[in-house]
């Protein structure tokens, strides 16, 4: 404890801790992700690369063609390379909202290499960064500094948010390498009553690849800007008895920034990341373990340096089986462990040392019943223990040791009925009740109607209430206990249409967050409203997808939220270069103007990215070349991290990376 008996706020694992004062920063010239010579070479590279690729594609393409493919024997058909047909990804997330889906194919084609890059392509999501972490904004809420996420992240059904800061790790510190993602879905809004209490403004549902998707092993190596070196090795198989397994490890080194999107690390530094995944399944049994460790060391001058380490690991053991004709049951034991360690030293030796650790486990049971005609009933119960929530300030020359230990228990029950009122009309009625020690019971009802007036058309209406309990960091590790969670009341209306090669949707929403956590003391309520549009067209291997979100989030005093853009526009185009062996993809993202916490303006930003993908080239190797921020726009989102030093503000950050990999059996 400090002299006044109160523990200080824990050190945030954000830029406020890792950045020294501006006077320590060595004067350096304006930075760019590529030296000038590199920029010149790069400026013509997009067109030249496309020309080379097209010529190469002409040389490589030469598929067997027949007017009537049924005349070909099956052996020949199996050996025929096909042009991808229009295929709109099917939603698997249980939510009556406008779900946004990206598949492994999209992730590969658009060259998305961190979870943040994947999320930044999804409608209505906004990714921000400081110099230590990346932050996810949804519906105008969330951005640099807001560690406690309001979007739930599930990896194969397992909650993947840490239990210290409720933080989503989406940068180089992601829990999962996007190369292992089979599909990712974002369901804005409260999702379903069956999800946990942190499904607040949205649910992200990641499904990872299975052993059958490899049946062998896969290796990839990449080099890129920010001193990046990356290696991945993945193996997996499906056995004759139906059992499947997959194992993967990714190792990465870079300059320590959470993303190459924001330019170089301003000071000499090194980041190291390790991601690993093990999974298996057999006859209704599933076992999965995954984790990451990310460390960043920074040297501000000869003696002044610091280092922080984030680590997370998760495990699941589950069993799912039919219990007679109409019943189905599932039980999962899940858990996780999270650490944040920080050390800083100067010429006089260590002056800050912290170790913050958390652990949790839970039992999650669900029972489904389909024996009642027209109804699909699901009952759930979840019992969670957080036995370790520890803040430990280690002794240094000028400060004594301090330590706070907490534990938590949470219990929740849920029920949901999917009721077919007519062939074209479905209703979902759901309720979740949750209780945490020291916090009042929280009821989270969610109801929805889905009407399909004619083939291809769907109208969805959902409304409900979601509750988010405070993270242990928001409670200052016990010094500022919260007896209530923050509550979001939301309404969504969505119109969707799918027909042949075209899909489009429009959604309008409104929400109100009462008793908001992590805001200024005078704020009692946040309100948000928005309109989102999305359209996708696919034909002959081409894919064109565009979305625009207009969003407005304000507090009850009429102030807009910081780092909350009102306009988000995203455009993605992917096309085969003659054959599917070569594919060129482009993404365009425009983020509207925002403001910093102190009122400073962040101008609008537009970025154009290109990715060239070559599949099964020489010796079966794949090649990916990523050209990022081709228009070399400035990154202004971190300007306040540099105080008033104009040399570091609005850095241009055009950059490139190259990856070579392959599958081997």
């Amino acid at each position, binding site marked *: 404890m400090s002299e006044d008996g109160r523990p200080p706020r824990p050190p945030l694992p954000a830029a406020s801790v890792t950045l020294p004062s501006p006077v320590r920063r060595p004067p350096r010239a304006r930075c760019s992700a590529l030296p000038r010579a590199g920029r010149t070479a790069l400026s013509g590279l997009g067109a030249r690369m*496309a020309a080379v690729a097209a010529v190469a594609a002409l040389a490589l393409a030469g598929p067997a063609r027949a007017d009537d493919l049924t005349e070909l024997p099956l052996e020949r058909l199996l050996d025929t390379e096909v042009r991808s047909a229009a295929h709109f990804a099917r939603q698997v997330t249980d939510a009556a909202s406008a779900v946004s889906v990206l598949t492994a194919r999209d992730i590969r084609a658009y060259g998305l290499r961190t979870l943040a890059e994947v999320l930044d392509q999804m409608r209505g999501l906004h990714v921000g960064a400081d110099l230590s972490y990346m932050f996810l904004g949804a519906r105008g809420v969330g951005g640099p500094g807001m560690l406690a996420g309001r979007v739930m992240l599930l990896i194969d059904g397992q909650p993947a948010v840490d239990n210290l800061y409720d933080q989503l790790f989406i940068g180089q510190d992601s829990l999962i390498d996007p190369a292992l993602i089979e599909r990712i879905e974002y369901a804005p809004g409260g999702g379903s009553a069956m999800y946990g209490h942190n499904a607040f403004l949205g649910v992200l549902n990641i499904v990872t690849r299975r052993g059958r998707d490899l049946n062998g092993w896969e290796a990839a190596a990449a080099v890129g800007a920010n001193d990046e070196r990356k290696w991945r090795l993945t193996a997996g198989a499906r056995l004759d008895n139906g059992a499947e397994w997959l194992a993967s490890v990714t190792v990465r080194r870079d300059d320590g920034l959470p993303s190459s999107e924001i330019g170089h690390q301003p000071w000499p530094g090194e980041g190291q990341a390790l991601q690993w995944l093990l999974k298996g399944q057999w006859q209704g049994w599933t076992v999965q373990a995954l984790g990451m460790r990310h460390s960043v060391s920074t040297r501000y001058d000869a003696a002044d340096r610091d280092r922080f380490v984030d680590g997370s690991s998760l495990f699941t053991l589950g069993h799912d089986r039919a219990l007679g004709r109409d019943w189905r049951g599932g039980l999962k034991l899940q858990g996780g462990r999270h650490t944040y360690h920080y050390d800083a030293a100067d010429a006089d030796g260590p002056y800050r040392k912290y170790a913050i650790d958390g652990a949790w486990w839970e039992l999650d049971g669900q029972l489904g019943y389909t024996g009642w005609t027209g109804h699909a009933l699901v009952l759930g119960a979840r019992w969670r223990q957080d036995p370790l929530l520890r803040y430990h300030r280690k002794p240094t020359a000028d400060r004594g040791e301090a330590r706070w230990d907490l534990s938590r228990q949470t219990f929740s029950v849920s029920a949901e009925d999917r009721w077919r009122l007519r062939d074209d009309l479905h209703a979902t009625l759901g309720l979740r009740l949750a209780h945490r020690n020291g916090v009042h019971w929280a009821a989270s009802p969610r109801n929805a109607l889905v009407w399909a007036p004619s083939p291809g058309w769907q109208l969805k209406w959902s409304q409900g209430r979601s509750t988010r309990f405070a993270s242990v960091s928001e409670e200052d590790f016990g010094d500022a206990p919260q007896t209530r969670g923050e509550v979001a009341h939301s309404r969504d209306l969505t119109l969707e249409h799918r027909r*042949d090669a075209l899909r489009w949707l429009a959604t309008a929403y409104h929400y109100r967050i009462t008793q908001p956590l992590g805001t200024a003391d005078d704020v009692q309520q946040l309100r948000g409203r928005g309109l989102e549009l999305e359209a996708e067209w696919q034909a002959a291997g081409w894919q064109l997808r565009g979305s625009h979100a207009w969003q407005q989030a304000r507090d009850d005093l009429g102030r807009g939220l910081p780092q909350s853009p009102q306009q988000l526009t995203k455009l993605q185009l992917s096309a085969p270069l003659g054959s599917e062996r070569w594919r060129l993809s482009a993404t365009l993202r425009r983020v509207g103007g925002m403001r910093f916490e102190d009122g400073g303006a962040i101008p609008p930003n537009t970025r154009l990215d290109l990715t060239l993908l070559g599949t099964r080239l020489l010796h079966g190797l794949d090649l990916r070349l990523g050209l990022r921020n081709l228009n070399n726009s400035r990154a202004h989102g971190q300007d306040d991290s540099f105080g008033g030093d104009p040399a570091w503000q609005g850095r241009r950050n055009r950059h490139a990376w190259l990856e070579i990999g392959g599958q081997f059996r």
Partner: protein
Amino acid sequence: MTGRLHRGLRRLGLALALLGAADAWSQPDERAVKAAFLYNFIQFTQWPLPPTERFRLCVLGQAPLDPALARLEGKPVLNGLPLRVQPLGPRDRLEGCQALYVDDSQRAAAEELLPRLLAAPILTVTDSDGLADRGLMIEIRKRDLKLVFDVNLAATRRSGLELSSRLLKLAHYVGGAR
């Protein structure tokens, strides 16, 4: 910045123009190949009670594959029987169908249909991920640049259908063999 963006867009336009020219050399469409797979699967299957007048291929709901499947209409299968393509609703009677195609877009309707398909002498083929694990017989999926197929042998045996050894040999994976 606008100038740079325009230059970037011009380069992208040039690349796409090149790529459009190259597209004339494109590969066969995935849907046409899937329909050809389906036609082959029928040829390699024996039914406990083979049809005598026509062979009926039922298709659940409306599927993106419909135009490709329509081109199979009238083609001879088995011992020269004409193939008839027939749409099917999730609660329609299954009698009369010798084969059923379940498209991924019809996954929700398929869930309703699955219990009725158990032990029915109908060759069930899908391109929906994981439905062969749930009791359908053949699942087509894309692997890299080509199509492959998995077989649920337990499901075919339960229904009394026999798949030729040549078909099983060409399958990417055969489950339920033991």
